[in-house]
């Protein structure tokens, strides 16, 4: 089995290597002045484990949120780019049961609003072509605003509520892979997959697609 995998891998390297080197040879063409900045926006789906974004208590709660992002990047070389991004998601809502007494039943409702700021270093493959795959690595800091409302039900079912707001921050390193597909010299579509990591593995991830422009 291992031999077969090794042979398959070698065959793939041989087959892909030829086209990769051929493409590299095209880079002998004259150097051009690249635009140094890019700015884009994207929409996507964020999937999170129970360890991130407000830590839901009950099973079966929604684990997927819509996310919208704004990203700005600065090219240091035609391949290497520094990038910052802002991500917002829709509100996340979940309920936490509280210890019940014989005379009352209570639960706490959480309304979580995550906002993430990320910084990353990106390596973009190829030069001056219409499609650039890329890989990124960076850090995402998420500020989670958690509005809670605790309701206590007495035997007569009258409820009393107490509201509080707290903020927690989560810091996660991440890796991402994506594809920048250009329409023309400057305008592009960007699609990527991002995986944030904590000590137990992938803690959340996003799939995004959006538009941007180089300037």
């Amino acid at each position, binding site marked *: 089995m291992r031999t*077969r995998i090794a*042979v*398959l891998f070698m*065959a793939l390297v*041989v*087959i892909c290597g*030829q086209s990769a*080197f*051929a*493409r*590299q*040879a*095209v880079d*002998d*063409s*004259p150097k*051009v*002045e*690249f635009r140094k900045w890019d700015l884009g926006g994207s929409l996507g789906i964020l999937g999170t484990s129970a360890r991130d974004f407000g830590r839901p208590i009950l099973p079966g709660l929604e684990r997927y949120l819509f996310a919208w992002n704004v990203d700005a990047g600065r090219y240091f070389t035609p391949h290497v780019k520094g990038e910052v991004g802002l991500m917002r998601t829709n509100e996340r809502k979940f309920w936490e049961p509280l210890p019940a007494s014989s005379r009352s039943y209570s639960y706490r409702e959480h309304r979580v609003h995550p906002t993430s700021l990320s910084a990353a270093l990106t390596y973009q493959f190829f030069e*001056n*072509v*219409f*499609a650039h795959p890329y890989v990124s690595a960076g850090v995402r800091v998420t500020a989670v605003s958690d509005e809670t409302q605790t309701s206590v039900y007495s035997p007569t079912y009258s409820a009393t509520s107490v509201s509080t707001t707290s903020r927690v921050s989560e810091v996660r390193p991440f890796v991402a892979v994506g*594809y920048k*597909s*250009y*329409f*023309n*010299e400057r*305008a*592009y*579509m960007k*699609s990527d997959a991002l995986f944030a990591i904590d000590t137990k593995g992938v803690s959340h991830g996003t799939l995004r*697609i959006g538009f941007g422009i180089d300037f």
Partner: protein
Amino acid sequence: MKVQSIVVYLIIFFIAAPSFMAGHRQEPPEVWQAFAQRLESGAFIRVRLKTGGDVKGYFIPSSGDTFRVLPKTRIAVPIRDFQFSDIKSIDRQHEGWAPGWKVLTGVAVGVGTAFLLLLAYAATD
């Protein structure tokens, strides 16, 4: 060795062999000179070089011993001249959409399909 392994090796051979075979065939420069004379101005072509590189672009007629190509790049670059003796092959290519349009079309088809499936699902309820 199991039959399955033999099949895997055969598949690898048949995938890899054509590119190796193609790599060994070399045509003389006169062939490409004659080919160039029959190309119309602005034809979209791919030029493979003996050095291993390749360039996709638009053919520009010239009277000399060079083959002129305006490379198709995102940011415009100057016309490139190639010696016929440096050319390994010239292929006429179909100029497709820019990748951005392809991705956008794919997304539109995906979203449209999902929307239609939702509509169909709602209609059956």
